[in-house]
């Protein structure tokens, strides 16, 4: 991993974040729909509309609006929420921390379950275990999060009563209770991720097991466990890093939905509330933070992958 490679990657992520900000800004403020009307509704008085337009700077040309917005952003000013009249930044970042806890728990759970599952399915390819895992993955990928969430809620909270249905308890207050409340959302999000990743691990492992170097290792007389652990595993798991990074995208989408259903006050919830109350600065801030998180996660994954795979010298 050379310095030039790293520098290029950093430039890339700056470019990415710039484009993301353009997309967010473009969609929310520059689309044909009149932002003022969207915010105040169709029946607002012309005077109120004009006031909002001036307040939001909607009378300036688009590029100027963008530059003003970007400038404020870089200074850390994410605007004032139209709903609460509080600075958006503070609310959003606190909410983000809660979502990150959810996300990290889901990712850890996913890795613990999906990787062994995928490996097992690959090793027992074509046999009963493989088909069962395949079926479950198919199902996992075919159910939207809100359906899974509702079903799990029904099963674990309603009928069995093992877990609380909704609500949030801060980690610092009571760790155990916090985990109990986060269990259902984490499980819901993890289902899709496990389905995805286990399928990928399975196909990667099958490819590796069919490769020439594994055949060469077997023909050297190495025992099966050595072939698997020393030769196959590393090659099969390397792509998992990339897959996990891509899944962070699904994760973020899932977070929005589960926070809504299970009433977790994370950044997804903030975003939905902002959309429902048409709080433009909050919408922009929430979207920006989520997208930036995804971009940074991918960037980190690239770096980890480059460290692990020595063949990545140049881009």
């Amino acid at each position, binding site marked *: 991993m050379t310095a030039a490679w790293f520098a290029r990657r950093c430039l890339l992520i700056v470019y990415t974040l710039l484009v993301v900000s353009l997309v967010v800004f473009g969609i929310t403020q520059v689309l044909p729909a009149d932002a003022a009307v969207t915010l105040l509704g169709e029946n607002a008085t012309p005077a109120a509309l004009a006031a909002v337009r001036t307040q939001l700077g909607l009378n300036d040309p688009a590029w100027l609006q963008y530059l003003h917005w970007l400038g404020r952003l870089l200074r850390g000013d994410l605007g004032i929420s139209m709903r609460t009249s509080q600075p958006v930044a503070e609310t959003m970042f606190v909410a983000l921390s809660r979502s990150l806890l959810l996300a990290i728990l889901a990712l850890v759970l996913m890795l613990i379950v999906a990787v062994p599952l995928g490996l097992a399915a690959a090793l027992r390819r074509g046999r009963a275990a493989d088909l069962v895992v395949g079926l479950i993955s198919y199902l996992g990928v075919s159910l939207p999060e809100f359906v899974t969430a509702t079903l799990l809620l029904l099963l674990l909270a309603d009928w069995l009563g093992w877990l609380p249905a909704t609500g949030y308890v801060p980690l610092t207050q009571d760790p155990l209770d916090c985990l109990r409340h986060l269990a259902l959302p984490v499980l819901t999000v993890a289902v899709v991720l496990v389905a995805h990743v286990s399928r990928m691990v399975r196909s990667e492992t099958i490819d590796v097991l069919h490769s020439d*170097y594994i055949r060469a290792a077997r*023909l*050297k007389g190495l025992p099966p466990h050595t072939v698997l652990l020393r030769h196959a595993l590393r090659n099969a798991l390397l792509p998992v890093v990339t897959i996990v990074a891509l899944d962070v995208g699904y994760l973020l989408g899932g977070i929005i939905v589960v926070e809504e259903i299970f009433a977790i006050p994370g950044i997804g919830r903030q975003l939905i509330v902002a959309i429902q109350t048409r709080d433009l600065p909050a919408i922009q801030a929430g979207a920006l933070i989520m997208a930036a998180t995804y971009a940074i996660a991918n960037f980190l994954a690239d770096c980890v992958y480059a460290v692990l795979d020595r063949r990545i010298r140049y881009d």
Partner: protein
Amino acid sequence: MSPILEIVGYTLEYRTHGGTRRVLDDVALAIGAGEVLGLVGESGSGKSSLAWAITRHLPRNAREVAGSLRLDGADLRAMTAREIRSVRGRRIGMVFQDPASALNPTLTLGRQVTEVLELHRGLSPADARAAAIEALNHVGLHAPEALLARYPHEVSGGEKQRVVIAAAFASRPELIIFDEPTTALDVITGARILELFARLRAETKVAALYISHDLALVSRVADHVAVIHRGRIVEQDSGIDVFRAPREEYTQRLVAAVPRPERRLVDDAPRADILLAAEDIGVTYGRPRLFGRRQVAGNSGVSLQIHAGEILGVIGESGSGKSTLARALTGLVDFSGSVRDGTRRITKPKQMDRAYRDRVQIVFQHPDSSLNPRQRVHEILARPLRIARRQVSEIPRLLEQVRLPTAYASRYPHELSGGEKQRVAIARAFASRPALVICDEITAALDVSVQHAIMELLLELRRAQGTSYLFITHDLNLVRQIAHRLAVMRRGALVDLLPVEALSAHADPAALHPYTRELIAATPTPVG
């Protein structure tokens, strides 16, 4: 003395959706200690399946119908999985075709050698390391200690193959199976590997099964040669006898198809007028990126002229730039310098107009990728005809010219064999009745008998239409049969440009570039 490997009456079948396919039929052969048996066959002959059968690495749908495989008397077929594991690597070693894919990309070269030593010779890690260094030294690798810590992608193809050979010989096996070990390597590198093998063989008295499609090479390497065709051993004899006096019809055809430089197939002389001239052609490769361009030199300053009616051979190893030259002359890459076509000077691909395109055509190496899989043969040929302002009704004639049945016009490429696809590609090139056809390694991916037929076809077309060829290949024997002049390329530069007679044994070797001399020495000429 009892043979190390003895195969008697061995028959193997594969069960597929389409039925049962007999891959090996009543195969019998024997190899004694210190002997080398060459197994020669074309693609689909079953030669690789025999290697898998011996090492007991058969696919799940394989059925061993009859016969026995014995390693120094021990019945391989009767062994349990554990016994087989102890035989593999320890008593039977294997060297594969492509060292790049036979080595694990995420393990160091050292690890892939020491693990064999630790496993089969019971050495401790420290002792294994020392033994590995010695083994690598022994196969001619420089700085073996540094090499232990390197990864496969950091060393060259020849070095990789030496590592694989070192690992195979390290446990002092009784039998080593070589499956086309030099096919993926350059001619010169391959020759060095064969020298290494000869030395090791003399030292260790190991029995060897050398599998290859190259009869010329095998006749030089092996004591005995067995020719295999569609699963049956057709002929078995000493290498020299198989070549000089083949008894069976198939063997005779195979021997006749092997290119022999002293057997000229072209006996006329080119005309004096110049058809096309390359003037100081240079090509740089580099992926254009948003931030600067990384330059890799493809070709530098190549100049040559092609006369009317001439066959100009271009020979070189991989990376020599011969294909790049072809791409420049057909406008597939940007180039510096110019191409002179008659009185016109062309400096950019865009300047190559209809007249040029009609005169200069190209046939590519890989039949699988040179025909559009979604187009029928009819479409593939109709378009060039229409562009050259000829009639679509000429398609049957074109197919006849390349000796394909006219019914093939309605077929898709995947319904044709490799040789048939190349014929279609040739027909396509000849649609505009070109003056020059550039052949870019067109037979490299084909079996030797198919290659022979394609070469005959090319020469016949030349006789009928007076076409010139720029014949690019890595096979020196092949090109010496047909070319009037030879251009030798190395690392993007033109190193030698000589009449073909300058390469014959009678000519003065001092007139040749040292690299050319090296190439000639490394090319296996058939024995006899």
